[in-house]
């Protein structure tokens, strides 16, 4: 890299930098500091729900102006809508196919053409959203709940609990996800989305647990938690009312980003023949059928449309996760 002219120092997009002077030009946003003197808290009211809402409202204000968030959120709303009611935009039946039209190209009324079995690719692509999104959403929920519970308890109780639960987390972290999922799914005889959801949740939670543990350890040291404890709040109340609202943000962000990768993982497992299987309509199943023996060589449309739908969905969830993280992470403000 001989053309390395100069280093951005401080980076050009930094509005505060430039002037040397005293370090920390304490002016701009320092939201966590002392409550504004003009607004005394009500008698006895604990200040933390207000603060929590502050973070979320700030994030929302930030997100509303973020084009990346708006585009991905709109796309996700649309995808969820057609996952729930595919009949809205597709009139056919994804399982009614006529072999006579096998691999026919796009034609009016059948924009995406026909696949090997003579099924309408458009209808199958629309109906495929349901399985993919159901797997992604359920697995992300499972991972978030399981990870937050284990990580939260480890971080909150500390000591031997922490040691035991952290080792448990390490054990599950030690199994590569694709590997464990293939082994599990090939050994059981059940098929459908639930085994896939189950194994992804079972192997995916350690990442969330590590994040949740760190967040809870930070949150439990705050003064308002000590205050609540001094007032006699029990473990359940402390955890659910005081710590959870302040530790949940990183978990949500991580789960959103993972949601996208879970959808891709489902497709990969279906491609390997152990995920969802044929009578279930899913993008993974269709892509797998299209790439089997390079069927797409003569009819690229059978690979293109399901693959594009899958990629767009994964992209939407990853971008949403990125945007939410940027909004919730005060370091980047």
């Amino acid at each position, binding site marked *: 890299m001989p053309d390395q002219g100069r280093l951005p120092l401080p980076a050009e997009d930094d509005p505060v930098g430039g002037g040397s002077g005293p370090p920390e030009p304490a002016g701009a946003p320092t939201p966590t500091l002392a409550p504004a003197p003009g607004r005394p808290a009500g008698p006895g009211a604990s200040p933390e729900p207000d603060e929590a809402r502050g973070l979320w409202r700030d994030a929302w204000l930030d997100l509303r102006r973020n084009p990346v968030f708006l585009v991905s959120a709109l796309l996700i709303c649309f995808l969820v809508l057609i996952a729930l009611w595919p009949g809205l935009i597709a009139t056919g039946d994804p399982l009614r196919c006529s072999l006579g039209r096998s691999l026919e190209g796009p034609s009016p009324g059948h924009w995406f053409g026909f696949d090997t079995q003579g099924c309408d690719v458009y209808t199958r692509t629309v109906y495929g959203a349901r399985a993919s999104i159901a797997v992604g959403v359920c697995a992300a929920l499972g991972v978030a709940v399981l990870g937050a519970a284990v990580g939260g308890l480890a971080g909150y109780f500390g000591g031997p609990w922490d040691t035991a639960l952290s080792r448990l987390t390490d054990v599950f972290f030690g199994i590569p996800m694709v590997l464990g999922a293939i082994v599990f799914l090939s050994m059981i005889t059940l098929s459908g989305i639930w085994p896939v959801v189950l194994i992804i949740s079972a192997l995916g939670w350690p990442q969330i647990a590590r994040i949740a543990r760190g967040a809870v350890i930070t949150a439990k040291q705050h003064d308002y938690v000590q205050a609540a404890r001094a007032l006699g709040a029990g473990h359940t109340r402390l955890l659910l009312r005081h710590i959870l609202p302040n530790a949940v943000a990183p978990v949500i962000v991580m789960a959103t980003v993972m949601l996208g990768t879970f959808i891709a993982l489902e497709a990969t497992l279906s491609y390997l023949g152990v995920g969802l299987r044929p009578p279930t309509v899913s993008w993974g199943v269709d892509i797998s059928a299209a790439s089997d023996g390079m069927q797409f060589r003569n009819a690229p449309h059978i690979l293109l449309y399901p693959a594009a739908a*899958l990629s767009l969905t994964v992209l939407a969830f990853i971008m949403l996760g990125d945007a939410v993280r940027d909004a919730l992470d005060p370091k980047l403000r």
Partner: protein
Amino acid sequence: MGRYLLRRLVQMVPVFTGATFLIFLMVYALGDPVTALFGDRGPDPATARALRAEFNLDKPLWEQYLRYMGKIFTGDFGTAFNGRPVTELMANAFPISFRLMLVALGLEMVLGVALGVLTGLRRGRALDTSVLLATLVVIAVPTFVLGTTAQYLLGVELGWIQPAVSPDARLDELLLPGLILCLVSLAYVTRLTRTSVAENARADYVRTAVAKGLPARRVTVRHLLRNSLIPVVTYLGADIGTLMAGAIVTERIFNIQGVGYQLFQGIVRQNSPTVVGFVVVLVLIFLLANLFVDLLYAVLDPRIRYA
């Protein structure tokens, strides 16, 4: 340093035991190796019983596991049901996969860090935006779609490469499979390096280095990069396991007879000793890679000391 290493190795024991036991449980409790051996025809009950007794499949699970682990530590990974020892399969498969992983890891490190530094120093410019977009596309399009398409376009249509890799898997043949294998990680490494470099470019020590008149290249490589690499190295360490496991897809596409290929064959044929044996070794590699990364921290950041 020595004590730290020892403590970490001791900590690894329960994790290794737990992870391998989970896999063992999945294979031996959920599947039935003897029935699988007979395929669609049901086995004769007497033969099945004899086989179960021969392979200790009639003992309780924990005892099977202990016997299995005991054997592993004497270098005996058991006989696959087809008669060949599992170790022979491993001796053929691991060098190939290891080469593939090295190619992938090398590409990922060199390209990822280079792109990350270039974009991190020029945030918001055209190059930055286009690289960032490219990483998003790479992350979103599933590997097996990219793999089959690249194989078809480069191998079949253009004829630049052999579509299938030969059994001895030379390095030049592994270039495209390695690239496909590492693409997603490459995108993450790029993004991670970019964020890290952009953050550290404002650090005081970089300011000092620039102020004392060091050439920009030296500042970037010796001062900025060294500190920015810590999260990247963490990621790369954890990625070794992912690459080894992700090779199942890549090796299937390009017909490479490595670990992923043999493992997949073992899974499809429910060949339990093969599956458990390979996974045990993979888990061990994964754990050791993570340990190695933790030790590397001390090299990269002199502030970190291990007692």
